[in-house]
Structure formats: C-alpha cells, structure tokens
C-alpha cells in the first residue's frame, strides 16, 4: 500500500504518520502546494497545527492546492484518513460531517484514552472487532465533536460513527462520546485520537496499528485485486 501524508506549514505529526505508514507499506510526502498525489492508494491528513490553527483549526489548510486533489481522490472512492488536525481539515472541507470545537476544559489535553470500536468492518476498522477497546492517546485543544442532534441521529443510524470514547474516557466533551466518524460512503474517516502514536511497542500500546492494518487489507482486496 502506498500512502501519501500531506504536509502543511505547521503540520507536526506528519513524520509520525510517515513512520506508521511505513509499517504497512510505502509512505510518501505530499507537499501542500503540489497537486500530484503520486498514485497513492490512501491519503493521510496528519495532526499538528497547520497554519498555526489561525482563524479556526484547519480553516486555511482546507484551501491548499493539494486538498483539491484529495477531494477528487475521495470522490473517486480513495481512502482518506484525517487525524486530529487532519480531522479538523476534513470537516472544514465538508468531506466529513460536523465540526470540532474547543475542549470543554478550554485546555490542551494529552491523555492515553480507551476507545470503543462501534463498527468492526469497513476500510478503517475492518481489522477490529465491534465492541473492542483500543488504547490510543489524544492530544489537542479543539477536539469536541459537534453536529446538530438531527445530524447526529442520522450519523448513528447510518453507521457513520466508527469510534467512541469508552465510558469515563471522553476528554473533551464530544457529543455522544464520538471520537471518529466517516462519510456516507465510508471511504473518508476522521478521528481526534492519534493511532500513529500507538504503533510501537517501545512506546506502550500498539492498538493504533489496527487502523493502518484495516486500510492495508482494504487496499489489497479492492484496489490491487
């Protein structure tokens, strides 16, 4: 699997995403000003502080030249994973429903949290079992997931909520404990926790690998077949 990781001015966890992607295939860097996706099978929009989080987190990055290509790639069914700031960018770009608001505590929070897998199928959680718990760190100031309640009802009914914070583990006040959602088609997924920081046994939990392994399995079955 060839994975493109987007780098905006201010991206921080792009190198961590590159390292995680290297464990499941070939990672390449996609510079924000370039429009060549280099034939990748999947795109990761990584964590960090693109454009200093100016105006709103992700608000400026969504207009970067590379994002036009990412949007088209997504329309064509390509896999797009947005992590933390990446999730914010995808929501601002309307590739995912909802928005991320400041944490209820109004502070940056770093914490290893437990997530519950809501759906153990699809390109991003196919390698997980429904109901399984994953231990993955969060680190953000603006991670409170919001959508109007009719929208939330619709997302839940349509199975677009893939990950929730386990009871007692919601660090930011996200509505309905939502940690990650996908689009209607299921090929674009955004989450606030950082799976790329849970891949190395030296660092503790390796539960984040499930998400990258799910993506690889999906690409191998559907794209390379």
């Amino acid at each position, binding site marked *: 699997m060839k994975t493109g990781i987007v780098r905006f*001015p*201010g*991206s*921080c*966890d792009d*190198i*961590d995403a590159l*390292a995680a992607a290297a464990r499941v295939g070939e990672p390449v860097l996609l510079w924000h000003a370039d429009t060549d996706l280099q034939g990748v099978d999947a795109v990761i929009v990584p964590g*960090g*502080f693109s*454009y*200093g*989080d*100016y105006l709103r987190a992700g608000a400026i990055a969504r207009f970067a030249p590379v994002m036009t290509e990412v949007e088209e790639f997504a329309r064509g069914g390509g896999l797009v994973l947005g992590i933390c700031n990446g999730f914010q960018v995808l929501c601002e770009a309307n590739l995912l429903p909802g928005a991320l608001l400041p944490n209820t505590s109004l*502070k*940056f*929070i*770093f*914490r290893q949290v437990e997530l519950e897998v809501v759906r153990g199928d699809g390109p991003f959680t196919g390698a997980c079992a429904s109901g399984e718990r994953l231990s993955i*760190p969060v*680190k953000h*100031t603006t991670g409170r997931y919001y959508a109007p309640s009719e929208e939330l009802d619709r997302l839940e009914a349509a199975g677009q909520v893939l990950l929730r914070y386990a009871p007692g583990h919601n660090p930011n006040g996200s509505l309905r404990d939502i940690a990650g959602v996908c689009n209607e088609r299921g090929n674009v997924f955004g989450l606030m926790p950082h799976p*790329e*920081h849970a891949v*190395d046994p*030296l*660092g503790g939990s390796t539960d984040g690998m499930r998400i990258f392994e799910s993506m690889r399995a999906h690409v191998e079955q559907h794209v390379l077949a």
Partner: protein
Amino acid sequence: MSSSTSSLEERHRQLGLTDGEYARILERLGRAPGDVELAMLSLMWSEHCGYKHSRRLLRRLPKEGAHVLMGPGENAGAVDVGGGLAVAFKVESHNHPSAVEPFQGAATGVGGILRDVFAVGARPIAVLDSLRFGEPSASERSRYLLERAVAGIGHYGNSIGVPTVGGEIYFEGSYEQNCLVNAMCVGLAPHDRLIRSAAAGPGNVVILLGALTGRDGIGGASVLASAELGEGDEAKRPSVQIGDPFTEKKLLECCLELLDCELLVSLQDLGAAGLTSAASEMASKGGVGLTVDLCQISLREPGMEPFEIMVSESQERMLCVATPERVGEVLGVCERWEVPATTIGCVTEGDSFQVLHRGVVVADLPVSVLVDDCPLYDLEPSPPSDGLYEAPARVLDGSESPAETLLALLRSANIASRRPVFEQYDPIVQSRTVRRPDEADAAVLVLPDGSAIAVAIDGNGRRVACDPRRGAAEAVYECAANLACVGAEPLGLTNCLNFGNPEKPHVAWQLVEAVEGLSQACEALGVPVVGGNVSLYNEAPSGPIFPTPVVGIVGKLPDAGRAGRLGFAREGDAIGLLGPFEPSLVGSELSKLRGHAPVGELPVADAARIRILHQGIRARVRSGSFRSAHDIAEGGVATALAECCIAGDIGATARLPRGLDPFGEAPGRGFIVSGPAEALAGFVMIGSVGGDRLVIDGLLDLAVSDLHDARESGLSEWV
C-alpha cells in the same frame, strides 16, 4: 528614550549604565557615543548580556569531557552520543518577562531556547521546564502565574511539534515576587550538521530571516533583567515580547534545510538585545567586522527609529552568513518555507560594527568594545549573619502520626502529582518518547539505532538556601541519580543560576559557594558543563529568592527497550534500599511543612561512593536485574515507597533499617529498587512488593488508593 530629554550624562543612567561604565565607554571610544551606539552599548553591557558579575566565576566550572563536541560559549553545548549523532542542549531563564506577562514570558522562553538549539544545527527533540512560584494556597497571584506559565509553555511547545518530556515545579514563599521560568531544550544532529556562530569571510553576505521586526521588547534586556522588579512594573508591559510558534516552526524547518544543503557559513539566533547582540557576537567570534543597513530590514511597524531596530526583541528571527554565490539559493529555500528573508549587510575586515540608516552611519563601534570590554566585576562575598529567609507557614505540628505525615507530604504542593500540568503538554510528538512523565525518573527518547538518550532537570532552592555549596552539589547528584534510574550514563550538564542581587555580599557568597559546589560535584562524577545561563537580580524589597541553581543533564543508554521505570512491577519482587543513604530533616520538605526556616547543615556527601552507586544502579537497570528504580528525594524513603506503589498500582510491605528517618532527605544517594530476590542479593533488602496496601512495619499501613488520591489532589485545584 529620545535625545530631547536631559543631558547625555543622565541618559546613560536611564539606560542602566553606571557612571563608571559610561566613563569606560568614553575612554574606550575616545569620544561620546551617539544615540544608537549608546542604546547598543547599554544592552551589550547589561548584566543579562554581559554577565558582568558572573563571567569570572563561571570559569571555575569544569568543561572538559571525552564526549564534548561544543562547550560553553556557543548557542548551545553538544555531546557525542554515538552513531555519528550529536545531542545539543541548553537551559535558559526567562524570569523577569514571566513575572510581567507569564503566558508570553514562558512561551517566548521556550521559543528562545528552541532557537538556540537549532542555531547550532540540531533539530529540537525535547523540552523540559523548571518553574518556581509562590505558595498556591496562599497567593492568587502565584496561582495565576502558574496557570498562565504552564499554558504558555504548552502553547509554544505543542504548536511547534516539540514534545515537553519532563520538568519540575517548586512552590516557596521566597519566589512570590520573583517567579522563575527556566526552559531547557535538547536537539539532535548528525555531527556534520553542527554549525558554529562565528561570522567569517570578509565579503560574505549577512541575511536576516524570520518574523518582521517590530517594537517588541524594546529595552527589554536592560530594563527588565538588570534591575530588581519594583513598584509599577505594569508600565513595562509594552516591552514584553509576543511569541508565534507557527512562524518558528517554519523558521526551524527552513534553517535545518539550509544546513542540510550546506548553504550557510554561520548561523545565530536573535534573543536578548536582538540584532545588536546577534551581530556583535557573530563578528566577535569570527574576529571580523560587520556592516548592516537598517533600510534592508523588513519592519512590522512604520517609522521605527534606528535604535529601535537595533534593540528590538521581536521573536522568531535568525541571522546567517552566506557566500555571495549562494545567497540566491538561501533566499529560495526561505521563500519555499514562507520565511521572510533579506540581505542586510556584509562581513568586513577589521573590528568595526557599522550601522547605516538612509545612507547615514548611525553607529560605528569596535566589536571588541561591545562584546569584550564590558567591565567584569569581582564579587565581594560574605556569608549572611542571620537567616535570610522567613520561616514558612506551619502546616504540621509534629503530633501527626507517620501515616498522616505521609499523606500530608504526598498532598503538599512540592510533591503532589504534576498530572494537571503535564497533561497540558504533548510528550510524544516525533515518536521518540519511550518514558513519559510519571513513568520514570528521567525522560527517555529513542535514537535511530535503538539506543536512547535520557534527560532530567533538577534543583532544590530550599536546600541550597540552607547550604549553598552542598545544596548545589546535591542538584548535580540528584539529576545524575534520575538518569541512573533509567539506566543512563551522564554525558554533559547545562545549568541556570538563578540568584538575587550579586552586589549584595550575602548573595555573592551564595553564588560563589553554589558554583563551587556544582563544580566539585561535576568533577567527582566526571560530567562536564557544556553551557548554561545566569539570571541575577531576582530580588524584591523583602529579600532575594532562594539561591536556585537548576541543573539539566543529558545521558545515554545502549538499549531503549531496557530503560528503567519507577513503579513496582511484580508481586513478590524484593525491595532494596541502596545507599550510602544518611538522611536528615535539615532542608527537607517535612521541615518546611513543620514551619522551619531553611537553616542548618546538610548531610555530607561522599562523591566517590555516589559515583560507584550510580554506576551499579545503571548496570542493573540495563541488565534487567532491577525491575524498578527510583531515587529518594523530597519526602524521604516513605514518600519514595509510596510513589513506587502508586506508579505500579501495587502495594508493598517493608521494614526500615533501625534509626532511619522515614522522611529524611539526602538527594542523589538513596534509591528504592525492586526485582527478583536473587538480583538483589548483597543489597539491603527492606521488603517485598504485593497486595494493595503500603505497610511500613511499626510506622504506617495505608491503602495504595489512599496514597494515590492524596497525591492526585495536591495540585488539581490550582491549575
């Protein structure tokens, strides 16, 4: 500061120069300095830039070591860590700005030390912070400073993608009027990317890159850092620098790319005294002169005067020198990273620092006068006749049971869990962190070849107040002990000396004694000082702060997978108490809670035995014989046992050697370790791991959950 006010003689005093210093300037120049020249000299000759009261004393510190690649004098020190890699590191203070505006003061403190590290070509890979405030329970101002400083550190470090992996915070009445914010940065570089700041090559081009130049911090260096804070410091607020981590992130990537492409002759960051200091230092180190044209500098504010441009402390700027053939490429790289850059001058033969503005020479000073001719003052030390420091409020009266005492210590602000603080920091970005805060006594970061570096920062002002020589030595022993607990061998040390007014004999005495103590401990452990910082005049009308030397050590261990942890790990493991551990209550946390002022003689330290002790612990952590290792610090052995239980979420049963004070302290030379009984044979075994209670025979019996709750509650209401 316009020339229309008063006469020339008084102006120099307004800028912080003494009459004697002004006379020296006249003598050195052979004429009176112009406005711009006077502004430049007042900053370069300030305590903050000139180190007038400390430079002679700092020569005492030992600087030689087999692994040293860059010693004191450069933007950061550097040591060889093997595999062709170097680790650069330094600690610096930002005390006075933080007292005025704690968020920005702390943020720009982090920004400044980051720049010092990438100025030598190293990618910043970790930040640590050493903070001091007044008592949070007694002072709303101290709670405010704590909360804002922590927010500022988090804001800057998190945004720029450098993990904050460790630190320390102490609360003492002594710091009420003078908080301390010391920021340490560690960076990584291949040997051949390390660069020095000496400007070279007459004819080469000087380029200023980074943020636009505005009126930030005008006069900051001399106005804030060379004088004690008095009434009316609100008026100094306009002088505070505002930091922008996003700009610095781009600047950092840009500079590292310029170095990877070998496009630069030298690199220097702009810190205190801005362009004046950066350019003078570059020229001085290279033995060359510089000409700078202020009209080439991109300004943020219209109509800035020449002196303002020269002393502006606008953040996120660097100065570099490149050969004329490569200037185009340099500017190209800057443009790609969206970093404003302009050529502002050139390197010249000779000793002259010339500044032009609209075609007119507004300053022409010999570099040596700016950098080397600043007067150096001898300290006139004399021990204080009386106790300098007030006794703290009494919290315990001595009638408490050992169990109540332990819970009170765990709850106390200096010992309680720092989780409310470190949860505001990202400790894992860049994916190198192998030991996070609370997992071990030092942070551990993995290197590409699977080995790792460890880093810790330490300093106990209360103990140094009791006995500056022994207290300062203890800071070194404790920091080295923290490294031993993860299995790391110390390679180099950086220090920040935070003291009161050195012109007062008792403060001078504290400074001289502390430097002697630091030096002796470094020599005994074989750890060279590779750089550091001095912050003086931390004094209020009520008196000086506790003398607070802060020490940061970087070490190395061969296998990241074998890095030590502090928590008890396994039911049935034996617990060992390693020493020679001869604690006393003098200067201890318990003596503070009992309302005793910091006076008394600290226990003697046998440096040679400490060195052997650390080696032994290091070896057994590396081999896996010890499953946990934790040094005994504040609160003594009872507190250390509690901390090991809490971290491991498991109980222990222990019996202390007869006569050992459960709360006495002797930093750096007492350890609680655990492991299989066979591995601890030959050591003093005091108990075993297991259950869900901490039972110390004849002393106390407490549920680990109660210990945990007491420790967690300490700081949570303040931050």
